[in-house]
């Protein structure tokens, strides 16, 4: 057990070190979602969006929940990228030829991605605060938002890692990634409530786990516990199923790749 911890700690610190060496990239990783979506997109549609339809005081406060979950989505889907490069340049083989527990590398990646995502979510909520969006459920609500984000993130990161272990080239990986990410966002309640969508889109969006996550995060920010709790209970159930499926697929891909 002490060995296991030593391995995970060293491997997680490697991801942290890498990020800290790429200061420029780190800054953009942290800033990009709130800059593009929250500040630009949010303010752009501030007056175009109908607050009656949104059922929110303004568009930014409506959008905040969407941007939080979008960040979880993008970080999760990109979570396997570094393992992909490790696989391609042989670093992964080097790691796997050492007497480490086979799951250490993967677990270190989960820990790292979850930590970075949580930090970003806090930054987004902080910036929203500056635009006058105060989470209705307070600190405990923020903690719940982080928890939901992590539950969603685990499954997404597992999908990403499964892809990293399965694809033949990293070109394939990024094609699939680009193809997955935007439809997931448009076919969810991130930018527009389901009630305001064309019928076929809102129909599809119901099957998007992202919609469930957003529907729980949004009342935590806008309304309060009374309205949020049923959604939070529901999203926990949905995510349990989602994570189980993704982890099962990820474990299978990992076992196939690692012999």
């Amino acid at each position, binding site marked *: 057990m002490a060995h296991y911890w*030593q*391995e995970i700690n*060293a491997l997680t610190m490697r991801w942290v*070190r890498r990020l800290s*060496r790429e200061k420029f990239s780190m800054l953009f990783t942290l800033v990009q979602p709130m800059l593009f979506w929250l500040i630009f997109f949010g303010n752009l549609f501030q007056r175009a969006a109908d607050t009656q339809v949104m059922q929110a005081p303004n568009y930014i406060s409506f959008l905040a929940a969407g941007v939080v979950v979008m960040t979880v989505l993008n970080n999760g889907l990109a979570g396997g990228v570094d393992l992909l490069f490790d696989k391609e340049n*042989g670093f992964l*083989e080097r790691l796997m*030829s050492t007497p*480490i527990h086979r799951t*250490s590398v993967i677990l270190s990646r989960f820990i790292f991605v979850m930590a970075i995502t949580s930090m970003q979510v806090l930054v987004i909520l902080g910036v929203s605060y500056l635009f006058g969006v105060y989470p209705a459920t307070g600190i405990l609500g923020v903690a719940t938002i982080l928890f939901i984000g992590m539950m969603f993130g685990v499954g997404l990161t597992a999908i990403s890692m499964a892809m990293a272990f399965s694809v033949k080239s990293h070109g394939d990986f990024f094609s699939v990634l680009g193809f997955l990410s935007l439809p997931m966002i448009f076919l969810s309640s991130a930018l527009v409530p389901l009630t305001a969508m064309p019928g076929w889109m809102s129909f599809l969006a119901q099957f998007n786990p992202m919609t469930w996550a957003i529907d729980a995060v949004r009342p935590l920010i806008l309304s309060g516990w009374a309205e949020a709790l049923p959604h939070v209970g529901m999203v926990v159930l949905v995510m349990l199923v989602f994570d189980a499926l993704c982890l099962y697929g990820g474990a299978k891909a990992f076992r196939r790749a690692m012999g």
Partner: protein
Amino acid sequence: MDRTIAIDVSRLCKSYDSHKAVDDLSFQVYAGEIFGLLGPNGAGKSTTLRTLITLLHPTSGRATIMGYDSVREADQVRTVIGYVPQERAIDRFLTGREHLQLLGALYHLTKEEAAKRIGELLKLVELEAHADRPAKTYSGGMKRKLDIACGLLPDPKILFLDEPTLGLDVQSRLRIWEYVRMLKARGMTVVMTTNYLDEADRLCDRLAIIDGGKIKTLGSPAELKIALGGDIVALTLKEANRIPLLESDLIDRPAIKTVKATAKGLDIRVESPEKALPTILESANRLGCDIEFIQYNRPRLDDVFIAHTGRAITESAPEVESE
């Protein structure tokens, strides 16, 4: 010779779908030797190596490393081996020292143990001055040195090198060879793959020539060359009518294996040129055969390779025939 067996490979097969990458391979590696797997790209060298370092499970057959089974006792195997991958398996953003520290933790060394060993290794591969720079600033040769230091960090009984000098300049190659010889002198067993004939010839104690997933021949470079029939001394005589006289005189002399008359002289296969040349010259002198030209050919490993695989190593392996 009774030598300790470090690696025992028995009837190893590895198939991908219908393609047999490794086909019924059996060989042994002795403790303390440099053992080479020589073959063209796609011959099955790397597949064999990856099986030995526990990264691949054989389809059938087995391999034991220091007595441990590569599948059932993979964890024990991993504690006695070091691995230097073929690709530059370097994290560009980490410094040389951080690479070694990371591996130190993965081999479960304490901070003090790791620091001591890392100091020694950096000195060994002459990277002390660059240890705290990110690896992206390293030259190809320096990256290779770091690779090797990483492979040596666990203080392994057996070091596996996958194409250790692929794409390196001449000086760096010679440097790497020096390290490998030094490790052998320290008692380490080294297993390496290569597709450079000169590397196999000059570095390996024994080598297996692999092609199409099968071992074509196995032995020391000298044995393999002798097996081809030894060195050839070709004589051209001034007077062709003297050829039969000299031929009959040289047959059955010590150090001379065969004598064959050619149009202008003789092709003489010899066991060792040092012993045969004086005999040949003495005979020619005594019989009054003036020699116009004398040429000495030593079979090279290229010749061994061609003799066993039917083509030069630079020619790529033929596509797998569909049967």
